[in-house]
């Protein structure tokens, strides 16, 4: 019987060590697409978190009934249902944001993060561990998204969430809010995270 991580370990792992975006390189489509502003990024992070938590709880509750070769179908059905519900809730109560996010909300269905967590964690551990995992991963995802969004929005428009941060004399780097800016920002941040990680493991190697 392999030692599965405790709920607390699952929670902590999701935030930085096993960050879905920077470490596992999953869920990159929304990371690049909706980070041209802080508000869309936060909305997407909350939406993904909600779907991830609901799907993890349901799958964890029925984990003993899953047949091996039909489990992907069950995962897909559950995730698609919750994404439909979240999409409708957004269209009803946050209509402008729903229009801004457009087709990227239904694309949560094929977001690798959710299927991966269902497969790795929810289908094997109890509800508490699955929920902790979902919350941790969602926080990690949110941190990644807001980091990229903050940089793109500040450099691209001088504003953050619609509030003017830099003086209006700042020549907005419009490329930052356009597609190339997404690639470049994320690439540079990924290199930064890799560098920090390698420095830290070097230090630990020298100490030990």
């Amino acid at each position, binding site marked *: 019987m392999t030692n599965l991580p405790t709920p607390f370990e699952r929670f902590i792992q999701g935030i930085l060590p096993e960050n879905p975006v920077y470490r596992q390189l999953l869920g990159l489509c929304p990371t690049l697409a909706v980070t041209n502003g802080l508000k869309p990024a936060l909305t997407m992070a909350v939406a993904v978190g909600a779907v991830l938590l609901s799907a993890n709880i349901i799958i964890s509750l029925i984990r003993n009934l899953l047949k091996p070769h039909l489990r992907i179908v*069950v995962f897909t059905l559950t995730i698609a*249902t919750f994404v439909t519900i979240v999409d409708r809730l957004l*269209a009803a109560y946050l*209509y402008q944001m729903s229009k801004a996010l457009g087709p990227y909300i239904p694309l949560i269905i094929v977001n690798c993060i959710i299927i991966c967590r269902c497969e790795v964690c929810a289908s094997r551990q109890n509800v508490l561990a699955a929920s902790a995992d979902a919350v941790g991963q969602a926080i990690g995802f949110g941190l990644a998204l807001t980091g990229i969004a903050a940089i793109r929005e500040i450099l691209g428009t001088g504003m953050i969430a619609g509030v003017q941060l830099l003086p209006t004399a700042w020549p907005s780097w419009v490329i930052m809010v356009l597609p190339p800016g997404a690639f470049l920002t994320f690439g540079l941040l990924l290199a930064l995270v890799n560098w920090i990680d390698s420095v830290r493991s070097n230090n630990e190697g020298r100490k030990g």
Partner: protein
Amino acid sequence: MERALKKRTAGVADRLKNSNFAQAWLILVLALIFGVALAAVQANLSGVIAANKLNETLERVPELVWGTATAARMASQNASVDITPGTVTIKKDLKTSYYNLFRVTHEGKLAGWVVKAGGQGYADKIELIIGLDPGADTITGLFVLQQKETPGLGNKITFPRWRNQFIRKKTSTPLVVTKGKSQVPNGIDAVTGATISSRSVTGIVNRTIRDVKGRLTPATIRFYERQL
């Protein structure tokens, strides 16, 4: 003989148990539960979503017909404004196009029209609503519903300062876009660095007015009940 028969029935029972249908019971139960959940969501939220979509345009209508200040004053006085949606069909050169519009009446009198229009911008489609006076002789307002122009350049067409150029322009002659301060009465200053976006919006306005002018009569418009 008996043992062979028993083995065969056991084999059939086993096959039934492992058949796809039996194993799929979980999926069928889940599909049923989720179906009920989705039906509940649809029943509760579809009205709210449809209202959101309609209100997006409806709440702009007063300020397009009367201007922002007057519309705000009327709203604070709870003035009764009747907005009736309708469609006008234009048949031209074998092509049929539809324009969705709203007839705005205040205290029984026709106050103006608001026409929904769209067309190709620089980057993607642009959707506008245009306010016209009762005779469709003057433009009373312009609002950009949807655009995907370049941020910082083309998307300045949404700024009130640029849109307000269209107010009080006569519809008798088409509007022209000029770079820099325009000297003619039907001129529109282009956004600096976004000539194509400015031209697209002006082109959409010109085309809509040309199509719709003279057809804003009860005979040619099909009105329908507002479903709210």
